[in-house]
């Protein structure tokens, strides 16, 4: 009886690791491809030797072919994503706090508007949004990539729900001590929401980081392209340089992975709230 159970658990772990391998395989393939000699990329699974040539090529801008600002693109991605994510977090905390802890007339109305907007198919807005950005003169600027992505409805929704679980007494007590709303947010609400903030931050950052369509539309100046867009657009012309393609893919993937693994301790806790 015990023997058969142990056997079953063993099999389960074999299965679990096999699946894990499948899930991680494309990442491994990407890294191996970026370290392979150029004549072995996409031809051999395990390269006969490892080389950093692809990365050197990338970090020198690939000058020997056509100069492409890969590092600049990486910097653009970091700038645009960080700014957007920061704004999305700050605005979501503010609005979420207002909707859960500040009783004001019209609160329910705002709440409903957000819910309606969340389920609204945003594709209809794509073309007019582009026109608005152009009208404001933001075409080919960082603003075009940051400001239309400064508020996130899902994040507001999540924070509103989370803040509702914070007891009102805490807020009242702080008010008694003479604290204003901004102080309450900074000193009480924000520190209490660390686990959910981790998750919201990760999701927002990840989604912003991999955005393709919008960033592709509003910017065509090579100096402002994000890494994701540059990678997508250079795919054709660089068909002959798969090594650097993989190196750039690694460059694109690494920051997200590092962030995620850094925060993975808080992951389960926060995820439980999100999935509820």
């Amino acid at each position, binding site marked *: 009886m015990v023997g058969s159970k142990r056997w079953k658990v063993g099999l389960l772990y074999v299965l679990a690791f096999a699946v894990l391998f499948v899930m991680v395989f494309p990442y491994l393939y990407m890294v191996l491809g970026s370290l392979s000699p150029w004549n072995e990329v996409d031809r051999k699974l395990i390269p006969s030797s490892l080389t950093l040539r692809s990365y050197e090529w990338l970090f020198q801008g690939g000058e020997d072919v056509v100069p492409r600002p890969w590092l600049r693109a990486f910097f653009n991605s970091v700038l645009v994503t960080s700014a957007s994510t920061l704004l999305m977090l700050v605005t979501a905390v503010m609005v979420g*706090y*207002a909707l859960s802890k500040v009783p004001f007339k019209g609160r329910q109305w705002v709440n409903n508007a957000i819910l309606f907007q969340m389920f609204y*198919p945003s594709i*209809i807005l794509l073309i007019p949004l582009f026109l*608005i950005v152009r009208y404001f003169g933001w075409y080919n600027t960082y603003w075009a990539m940051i400001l239309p992505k400064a508020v996130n409805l899902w994040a507001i929704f999540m924070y509103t729900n989370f803040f509702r679980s914070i007891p009102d007494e805490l807020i009242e007590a702080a008010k008694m001590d003479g604290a204003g709303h901004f102080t309450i947010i900074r000193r009480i609400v924000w520190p209490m929401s660390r686990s959910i903030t981790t998750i919201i931050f990760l999701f927002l950052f990840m989604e912003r980081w*991999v955005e*393709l369509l919008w960033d592709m539309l509003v910017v065509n100046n090579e100096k402002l392209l994000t890494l994701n867009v540059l990678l997508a657009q250079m795919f054709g012309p660089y068909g002959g340089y798969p090594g650097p393609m993989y190196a750039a893919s690694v460059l694109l993937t690494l920051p997200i992975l590092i962030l*995620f693994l850094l925060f993975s301790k808080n992951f389960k806790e926060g*995820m439980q709230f999100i999935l509820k």
Partner: protein
Amino acid sequence: MNKHAAKMGWLLASPYLIYSAIFFLIPLFWALFLAFTNWNLISPEYETVGMQNFLDAFFSPSVRAAFWVTYKFMLMFVPIVIAGSLFLALIIHHLPRWKGLFAVGYFLPYLASGVASSIVVKGVISYNSPLNQFLRNALGWDVDWLGSPILAPLVIALMMAWKFVGYYALLFLAGLESIPKEVYEAAEIDGVVGWKRVWYVTIPMLYPSFYTVTILAVGLMFGIFTEPYVLTGGGPEYATHTWQLEIYNQAFEKLNAGYGTAVAIINSIVTFASIFVFRKVLEKWGGKHGWE
């Protein structure tokens, strides 16, 4: 005091209000107007054309392709992703140790950029890739993955499944963990064991998770852009031509902004209607079996 609270409330909510006025309300009405014009995104002149855009879209082969391609994607993606994520959730659920580690590991694909994973997939199935070499040399199969109108959508569907399976597994896992032990014990007393237990206890109790995952997966199929854009460009012969590609091509490649907006409106109506039907069918199906 109350007045102050009201002011504070509106002030704190103002980022949302300002944002929505500029980036939601104005574009919304603009879109409703644009859809009835023949504007070409550049010239200052345009005229209203009534329902012409909608009529054109109805008879357009590429719009029709996008319509059917979405359902084709769904047919491949939804069963794969549901079976796969349920499988992963069951594995994680039954592991005695390191649950979190595997959950995080399975979630990793969700973090990959569609561009990066498309590049990898394109490499894995390229002509001289180890996979194709093996298929050619060992089995004599010469497969043109992205050149076949059946395989190309399958490649994309599988890739999307790889990406989302770990995420949906978390939803199933939450469902599995919320099933009380007593239910299983009661079932065991009644002689419900083995596969019967899966069918009569686990699946009905998981119905809410099934419902959520199915609706999410169906909704996802209406918004695919990155993967076909990088992998196939919509080909071969419109086999992977999604709504988003059609809208993008029409508005920003062919500069038919008015027409593109009309297609976007049609797309959202089709999306809404489809999801509505799916919800009704699922609810009816669940209701018939006494699930909720």
